[in-house]
């Protein structure tokens, strides 16, 4: 299997006033295509920081971040934006839908940022995703008219619409009740199995962690464990 993401001795420091906060203290791991991997750890351990590096929305203080073979650790904002647009997708803890756009338009938006698909193609593709996440009857609704679970489904569809190399999800179930959260994770897992989309998500919830096929444990900005479950071990 091919490596699509590689972190090599990634360090990230923040300055809080004059105090140096070491959020990541040398993190290295690789993700191969088709993985369904959790980054687990207590709050403040550095999970979000890792996802932000992989997601090209933050630069590391030192170390390599390689995505699809390219080192993105020192790219300009413009180049990073291009990666975010075409190579990587995000699912956020608090859904982050555009409030003035309806379900269809929110899912379609990433395609409108990049030329490529013609209108008919685009429409068919968006409709197919809306069906996948089960929101056909909610297509014209605004985010404010949806439940939390429905919103996260829209966010998942939006993340998949550009057919990204990897989908990053930072605690995607943290703002949902446990039943809904479990369903969202099932949807992600289902999409991973059927479409082969690579998922990398963070969580501090053990029931969610259990669904991952690989769990990278983070503690105090360092990797404390990396367990790949054998086939059948995951639910």
């Amino acid at each position, binding site marked *: 299997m091919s490596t699509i993401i590689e972190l090599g001795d990634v360090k990230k420091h923040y300055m809080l006033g004059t105090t140096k906060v070491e959020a990541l203290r040398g993190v290295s791991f690789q993700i191969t295509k088709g993985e369904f991997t959790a980054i687990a750890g207590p709050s403040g351990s550095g999970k*979000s920081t890792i996802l*932000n590096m992989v*997601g090209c*929305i*933050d630069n590391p203080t030192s170390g390599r971040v390689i995505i699809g073979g390219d080192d993105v650790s020192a790219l300009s*904002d*413009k180049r990073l*934006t*291009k990666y*975010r*647009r*075409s190579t990587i*997708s*995000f699912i*956020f*803890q*608090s*859904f*982050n*839908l*555009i*409030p*003035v*756009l309806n379900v269809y*338009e929110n899912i379609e*938006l*990433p395609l*409108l*940022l*990049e030329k490529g698909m013609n209108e008919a193609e685009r429409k068919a593709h968006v409709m197919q995703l809306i069906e996948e996440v089960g929101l056909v009857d909610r297509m014209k609704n605004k985010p404010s008219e949806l439940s939390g679970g429905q919103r996260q489904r829209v966010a998942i569809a*939006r993340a998949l619409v*550009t057919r990204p190399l990897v989908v990053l999800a*930072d605690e995607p179930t943290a703002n949902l009740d446990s039943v809904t959260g479990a369903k969202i994770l099932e949807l992600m897992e289902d999409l991973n199995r059927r479409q082969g989309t690579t998922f990398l998500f963070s969580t501090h919830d053990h029931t969610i962690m259990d669904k991952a096929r690989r769990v990278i444990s983070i503690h105090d900005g360092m990797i404390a464990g990396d367990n790949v479950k054998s086939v059948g071990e995951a639910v």
Partner: protein
Amino acid sequence: MRDLFKPAAIRIAMRSILRRKTRMLLIGSLVTIGTFLIVFGGTFASSAQSESKKAIVSYFTGDLELYSNRSREIPSPFSFNTPLPVVEDSRKIETWLDSNPDVESFVSIGQNYGLISTVKDGAKIDLPILFYAVDTARYQKTFDNLKVTTGQYFGSEGSPSSQGVLLSEMQKKAYRDKYGVTLEPGQKVTLLSLTGGGSVNAVPSQILGYFEPKHYSNVFNYINFMDMRTYSSLFNFTGIATGSLPATMDDAFAATSDDAIFGLADTAAFDKLDVASLAKEELTGSTQIAIKLKDSGRAEAFLKDVEAQGFQVKSIPWNKASSFFASVADILQAVIYGATFLIFLIVVFILMNTLIINILERTGEIGTLRAIGADKSFVSAIFLWESILLNLFAAVVGISLSLLLIASFGSGGVQLPDIVAQYLVGGGPLNLVISPVPFLTGVGLVLVVSFLATLYPIRVAVDISPLKAMSGV
């Protein structure tokens, strides 16, 4: 601005405006107020200026005035104590003006002062009088500014002109209050001249009646009128045309003082004087000639023509001849623009603040757009469109309101406080004249300023990091 015309940006912009109705209404009404102020204020100011000029030219000075080139002062209705020197070749000038195609009408004016001698309770009493001595028919034709309240204007049209003095109602009141004298129309009086040389000349005359000025009563309440013939005999202007005198004697005559004239007898030039060559001419004694042109825009060309004639005159345009009156509209305009500018500054300040609050509230949304791959130009396109659409709409509303207000004044004009109206347009309402300049500058300025007010907030917006998406929308 690669993303400016991305439909997604325009869609988000339009919906965002509609979503924040209250705030957008606030911003919109600020821009509307700004537009209204500039457009209405500009129309008011430019109307004040054009109407002020029109009124001054029509009732006060004409397009320009000619006056003696020996004068060290300029003609002013407020300087009676030092009468200007007489325009020597006024007859020649008048003849030239009569046949000049640029001239609509003109009138020669002798601005001077004297005394009205009459009798009160059996004793003689002298009343001071400031006056314009005019060719009465020409004055009426040129300025038509006197409304006769009692008595008559120097004879009715067609009948031979009456000679005498026409007093202002204000003068009547002043004589009554100060001297206890009321002069009746038809009353015989003696006019006394006071010349620089100290001699006094007396001519019998009469009071013709009283007038009220139709315009600029703050000027013409204090000026009385006299026909040119009475004036000429009062100041001994009848006689020889100085233009036909040998040059050396010309200056001596110009002094118009008796001593100087007697002194002439001693000069060599006087001995050689060929009396037969002297043109017999009735002098007018006019100190200035007010001229109205058919086309005010021709004033400069006309002045060149005057210069080419070599007349013994200088010229002064309407705005200088009317003393400070022409600057009243300028001052008003400056005040309007100053006030508008200040209010506009405040509007821009509030506008910028509201836009920044608007953007800060949408930090999560902007961060999300950036996180899912929107370029900075896409974010700035959204906010530019929000600004453009809102400001255009608000500007259109502002213009419509201004138009409505201007239309509501209609042909009646704006009723100003009399004191303002007197100085601005010589009294009466100010007609608002719609001209494209204040509209175009108004709209242009509002759009430019509101665009500039958007630049900084947009910079704030595009600098929002995609990391901000993590804190949610």
